[in-house]
């Protein structure tokens, strides 16, 4: 299934009178794997929640393919059928097994029981945790939980995957495994993937880096040493400067 094209235009979000995102514009092509980097409090979570239909902008437009996400009055179907969200805190339901957690989005979509089980097990296999299908989240390691959360995000066969600091609480090795997993997901499913993180290692797996500082988003190179916050803001529809190289460097 092809990835989504994401167009953001002059997006602004104010929370309690404070402007958290300011006039954000960018374009992500179908199937791109993009990093969103910026310090804590810069607005990464806010931006991803807007893209995922979990929040509504104060002003501006978000087009995902032909869906006007900023204007969705009932975002349920969009969340269920278009987006897969990986949260900073894994947010697995503690009372459900790994497999049941992966099945949750499919329950909402009325996928028949047997098919649900089958697909959940395929996804668990894909993230390398089929053997932990019957485990409760409390008995899994942090890295394993995030991989279950990724499997859950894949359950609705999303065209757009949004991951909000999925490695925030993981060690370097587990972090690297998550990046490899997300890169292989993109390769296998062709989904568009946007990952918020301040792990520099992520930049080796992506082909683009959007930087965010105090609610302002701009294009930044992939050079891991680059940290110049004064790089210029990209034009909203900036031609096609991205080659679709394989993600694994």
């Amino acid at each position, binding site marked *: 299934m092809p990835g989504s094209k994401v167009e953001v235009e002059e997006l602004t979000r104010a929370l309690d009178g404070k402007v958290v995102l300011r006039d954000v514009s960018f374009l992500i092509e179908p199937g791109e794997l993009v990093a969103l980097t910026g310090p804590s409090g810069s607005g990464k979570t806010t931006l991803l929640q807007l893209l995922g239909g979990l929040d509504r902008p104060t002003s501006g437009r978000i087009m995902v393919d032909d869906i006007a996400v900023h204007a969705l009055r009932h975002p349920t179907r969009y969340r269920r059928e278009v987006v897969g969200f990986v949260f900073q805190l894994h947010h697995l*339901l503690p*009372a459900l097994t790994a497999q049941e957690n992966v099945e949750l989005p499919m329950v909402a979509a009325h996928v028949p029981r047997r098919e649900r089980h089958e697909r959940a097990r395929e996804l668990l296999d894909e993230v390398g945790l089929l053997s932990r299908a019957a485990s409760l989240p409390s008995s899994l390691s942090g890295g394993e939980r995030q991989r279950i959360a990724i499997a859950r995000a894949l359950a609705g066969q999303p065209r757009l995957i949004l991951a909000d600091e999925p490695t925030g609480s993981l060690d370097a090795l587990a972090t690297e495994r998550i990046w490899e997993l997300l890169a292989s997901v993109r390769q296998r499913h062709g989904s568009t993937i946007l990952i918020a993180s301040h792990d520099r290692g992520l930049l080796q797996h992506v082909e683009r880096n959007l930087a965010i500082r105090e609610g302002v988003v701009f294009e930044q190179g992939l050079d891991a040493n680059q940290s110049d916050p004064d790089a210029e803001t990209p034009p909203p529809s900036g031609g096609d400067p991205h080659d679709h190289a394989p993600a694994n460097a």
Partner: protein
Amino acid sequence: MTTLLQTLEALERRPMRTFLTALGTALGIATIVALLAVSGGAQASASKFLNLGSSDLGLFQRDAADPTTSVLPLALVSELRHTRGIQAATPLVLLVGAVHRAPGAIAFGAYPDSFVTDRYVFLAGRMFTGDRQVAVGSGLAAQLHLQVGDTLTIAHHRLSVSGIYHMGVPEQDDGAVIAFGLAQKLAGKEGEATTVAVSLAPTVSRSEGIKTISRRFPGLLILGDGVNAPRTGVSGVLLSRLALVLAVIALVIGGVGVMNTMLMSVLERRTEFALLAAVGWSGPQIAMRVMAEGILTSIIGAGLGLLLGVVGAQLLVGLLGASEYVAPNVTAWDLGQALLVGVLLGVLGGMYPAWRAARLSPAKVLAER
């Protein structure tokens, strides 16, 4: 069906929370059941105080909290005697909780030559004479192993048993009769009576008698044997009002308990519902899940509550020694009602929390740490 099974599984995996939630519901239901049982029991036993012939009436103070606390002026007796259609009138005093070793027994103070005492059938001995004797009912005699000549203490007064009677009326067979004057003194009711028993003239029908008396003495509560008199009397006026008040209080306490429990369990799990919303569950889907859990939990709770309520009411009434007056009488219908109320409360109590859960903004909740 799938939802039900999943819900059950989910409840099973959180045994502690499920138990506590069910317990909250259970306490609410138990309150309802216990109060309903006790008030229902009070209602049922109120008309048993007096044994009256088919042409007799018992007169009580209309606004007394219950028949045993009724107070009537003795002057009423002579007025009644001069009322057309009334053959005889005799005052009685009811002493509650005064019989030593039998707290549930009632001691009746009566004149030994009245039309009421004339009817006593003695199995042994005879009616009391004077202030030092007592006639004992067969039930009480059996309970305390009393024989003629034994001593029975009533309100710290040692009395000699003059005879043992049998009437076929539980309250009287399980009680005792003493001199009216003595009973008045022991009850602190000089110049007063608890009730006046009235015998109607043979020419007067019962309904005529009731009409005449209620017209002349509007402050009286008139009880009779059979027909509707006792029901419209004690139960209709005094106890059903009391029972209603108790039932309403019970419903409010229980209902608030159930709703509060449900609300807490939802608030505690807001992240869970926000997560479900974020992965594509619709508002109604989330609300259904909350409701299903609420209903199941309250069914468990209602069952537990029924048990607690029935057992608790029995224990309480037994402990207070009040079983003679407010024997909890719980019928299958009561139980069914309580169960129904429990489930209804679960549904109602779950509705607001479900609505809240469905409306949570996933962005806000999921961003909290």
